[in-house]
């Protein structure tokens, strides 16, 4: 990438990865899971830009506001949300958002999930149960998801069947073993997710039979004139 504009370094961040085109289709997937499961690692593995994060200030749900009277600094919690970007052939840009796995951040989670195509839920065999909460949240949100078990070197290996049973997965939900540090394995996880998302979408509706809507006449009036 050429850096023609190297002047005025004062305020401008030194390496901003601008979008190359203005007509790209942007889409979003969530990378969800408990703390330390490898969300940011996977995003970093795939992202073409240095992983960025936003600081999201949010009021924690379930904590009575009255308790915080006189403690305005504690009224909100700041959560860092990591994300990355991957440009794909076909004029597409995929954004991957690492989303916190705790229910107390559900409002923030819902906000990030809006418009997402699906979620990749990461799990760790040493603490599979830690991924249950996020799986529940993803299901409540109605987002299709795949589960990728991030294979840490010191983690016990289990067969896919055993893992499926432990995670109580729907038979159609993909489960993969993955190393979030490897690009190929991480791409495979996203491919499995995208295939699953596609399976869940209704087949393309056949073109409506002769539904040529004439622009001028009011359809309500013409319908009323039709005999039963």
């Amino acid at each position, binding site marked *: 990438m050429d850096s023609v504009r190297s002047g005025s370094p004062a305020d401008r961040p030194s390496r*901003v990865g601008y979008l190359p085109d203005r007509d790209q289709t942007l889409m979003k997937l969530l990378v969800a899971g408990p703390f330390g499961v490898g969300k940011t690692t996977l995003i970093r593995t795939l992202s073409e830009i240095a992983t960025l994060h936003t600081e999201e200030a949010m009021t924690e749900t379930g904590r009575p506001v009255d308790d915080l009277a006189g403690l305005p600094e504690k009224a909100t919690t700041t959560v860092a949300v990591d994300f990355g970007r991957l440009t794909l052939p076909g004029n597409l840009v995929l954004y991957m958002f690492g989303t916190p796995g705790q229910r107390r951040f559900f409002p923030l989670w819902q906000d990030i999930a809006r418009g997402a195509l699906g979620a990749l839920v990461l799990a760790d065999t040493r603490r599979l149960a830690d991924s249950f909460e996020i799986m529940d949240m993803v299901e409540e949100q109605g987002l299709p998801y795949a589960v990728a078990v991030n294979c840490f070197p010191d983690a016990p290996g289990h067969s896919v069947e055993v893992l499926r049973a432990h995670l109580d997965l729907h038979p159609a939900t993909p489960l993969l073993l993955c190393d979030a540090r490897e690009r190929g394995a991480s791409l495979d996880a996203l491919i499995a997710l995208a295939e699953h998302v596609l399976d869940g979408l209704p087949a393309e509706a056949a073109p409506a039979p002769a539904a040529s809507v004439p622009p001028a006449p009011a359809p309500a009036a013409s319908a009323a004139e039709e005999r039963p």
Partner: protein
Amino acid sequence: MTAVPRRRMVPAYLATGGRTRPGTAGFDRLTVLFADRAEPPRELEPEHHRLWELLRPGALTVVEAAAHLRLPVSATVFLAADLVEAGCLRARAPIPRAQQTDRSIVERLLVGLRALR
């Protein structure tokens, strides 16, 4: 590089001029922002100018602009809406208007991901 979390210098409510405004409804984390030719009016806040300067060389999404400016997404949306209103910024939806169904979009995603494999 891992950015070290640190407190913002300017609280979010000051960055937005201490007010809420209508006109931000259409904005999303992935709304694409790009600067127009016109410079922001002098009377706008320094934060507006920072956003506009950031976008001068090229387009970014709201969430990327927020990350680079170390502002919350919500504050960035306010700033962007002001700049759009002032005619110095343009915004477009993540999916260009001419585009079709969820299915065709996911199909394109799948083709794109497989091509990288």
